[in-house]
């Protein structure tokens, strides 16, 4: 998609350059006035977006006294001890690790199952194919709340309550509808000639998938993996229901919510700000590094 639109832009710009005569002087002046406004509004929204984040970041270095007396002030010193306190005492470090373990497992499972199921739906004819496909994709329409109560008992009866295995399986299961939907559409866009040639050359169906089709589907896999990573990393409702007891196994979102509650009792404002900063920084850092891929990964899902 991106390659197509850049080439279109280049050609139209080249065409426009030859044509910039006197005829468009009047409209240009009108648009110039609007330009000042547009920059003003754009800047205002940029401030609205960044200021709260920046404020939390700066507040994470303040002492509680500074936070209470002067919300707009700068921290008197870089108190990294706030971060250390949140990391160890509020166990943000451990929750971070827990989230990483759970998401590493669930993302692998989601991508494996999602890609294989989607490939079968996209490339093979078999009985009830449509039925199975719509069964999968229909899951996108259901509110997760409807499933919460029975899911709690399904997981508990399977002996997976308060376990990471349970969370991993459930995350993957709830990510499948979108993954299958997206990847089926993607596999359908790939040319069939390569697969046919490989089969004629005696390549087996399994080898064809892992050696030929999967590498060809890489752009789609990356997009949907980014999408799934963020939604699984930020998941909150499922762990809140399925990981209620054992504090040491909580994921990051639960840990932050608990930190906010205990902050309310103890008045440890700096600890809360430090915890929030620790929760925000890695995600924002990764986002800044891979901005293009992440933005197109997240928006591609809605444009399809």
């Amino acid at each position, binding site marked *: *998609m991106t390659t197509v*639109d850049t080439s*279109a*832009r280049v050609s139209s*710009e080249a*065409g*426009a350059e030859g044509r*910039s005569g006197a005829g*468009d002087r009047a*409209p240009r002046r009108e*648009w110039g006035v609007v330009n000042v406004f547009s*920059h003003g509004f*754009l800047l205002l*929204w*940029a401030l*609205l*977006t*960044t200021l*709260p*984040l920046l*404020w939390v970041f700066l507040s994470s270095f303040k002492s509680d006294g500074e936070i*209470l007396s*002067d*919300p*707009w002030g700068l921290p008197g010193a870089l108190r990294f001890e706030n971060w250390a306190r949140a990391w160890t005492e509020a166990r943000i470090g451990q929750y971070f690790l827990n989230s990483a373990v759970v998401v590493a497992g669930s993302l692998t499972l989601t991508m494996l*199952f*999602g890609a*294989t*199921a989607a*490939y*079968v739906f996209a490339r*093979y004819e078999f009985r009830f194919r449509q039925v199975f496909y719509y*069964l999968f994709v229909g*899951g996108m*329409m259901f*509110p997760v*709340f*409807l*499933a*919460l*109560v029975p899911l709690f008992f*399904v997981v508990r009866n*399977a002996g997976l309550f308060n376990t990471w295995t349970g969370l991993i399986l459930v995350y993957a299961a709830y990510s499948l*509808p979108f993954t299958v939907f997206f990847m089926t559409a993607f596999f359908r866009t790939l040319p069939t000639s390569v697969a*046919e040639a490989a089969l004629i050359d005696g390549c*087996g*169906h399994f080898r064809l998938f892992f050696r030929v089709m999967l590498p060809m589907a890489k752009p789609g896999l990356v997009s949907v993996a980014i999408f799934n990573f963020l939604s699984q990393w930020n998941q*909150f*409702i499922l762990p809140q229901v399925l990981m209620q007891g054992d504090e040491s196994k909580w994921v990051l*979102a639960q840990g*932050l919510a608990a930190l*906010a509650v205990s902050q309310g009792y103890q008045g440890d404002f700096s600890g*809360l700000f430090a915890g929030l900063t620790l929760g*925000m920084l890695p995600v*924002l850092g990764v*986002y*800044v590094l891979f901005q293009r891929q*992440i933005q197109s990964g997240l928006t591609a899902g*809605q*444009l399809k």
Partner: protein
Amino acid sequence: MKHGKYPLIITFLVPPLLLYGIFVLSPYLQAFQISTTNWLGYSATADYVGLENFGNLLRDGALWNAVKNNLILLVLLPVLTIALGLFFSSMLNMGGRRGTAGVVGVRGSGAYKLVYFFPQVLSVVIIALLWKEVYHPNNGLLNATLRAVGLPAPTWLGDPRTAFWAVLAVMVWANVGFYVVLFGAAMQAIPKDIYEAVMLDGASRWTTLTKVTIPLLWDTVQVAWIYLAIAALDGFILIQQMTDGGPNHSSDVIGLRMYNTAFGSETKFGYASAIGVVMFFLTLSVAVLALRASRRDRIEYS
């Protein structure tokens, strides 16, 4: 060619199907069944009560209050988010001043897009806690600013008159950036010669936006509408973390009602599932309505 097709279909399809069937399909189906019982939590006894739960729902004032709030969100969240999203993305993608008839992006549009997208990658829990502190009546960023310029400083989340609107503002804040980028991508896909033709005809900027850009973006706007409508029927995490539905139920939503009914002090699983079924049909009908209402002929370029 057909040789060996079925081993692959079975190995590739059965494990995902099992996982999905056990953890997604079966809970959804059970929920409909549980919603017709009077199941009170961890005991094994659950009697079939037919549609009694649904009858009780109709007389449940707290639930209707939550439904009312969700309906307000359903109208305002898509309207505000899409309006702001279209506004900013048209500024970003067509606000440039140079020769090409105003179809270039403004200077620094890359930086704006980078920043606008920030809330999208943060977890909703972090957004909720962050804004709870921003709204803090004494040491929050917002009231510090208001006091600095000599304006009154309300208690925001602590006041039944403002709590709901304060949360709505956060929902809009968290969503606008995503739709700026989404609409921006769709705008980039519109062929530039259309704009050149429009400019030659002397159309104003406003006419270009309303008569050319938005109609050409209609497919994307429709998708945005559905996603935002579904988001508006949820809102659970923000509300639970910021206000817990309060003060005085002023910011309650259906999801929170359901959650507290099932996992709060009383575990009324039957009744909670009935609320879940209501949410299901609300979501479904909103999606169908949005698809119907916004149906137009699909435009394809070239």
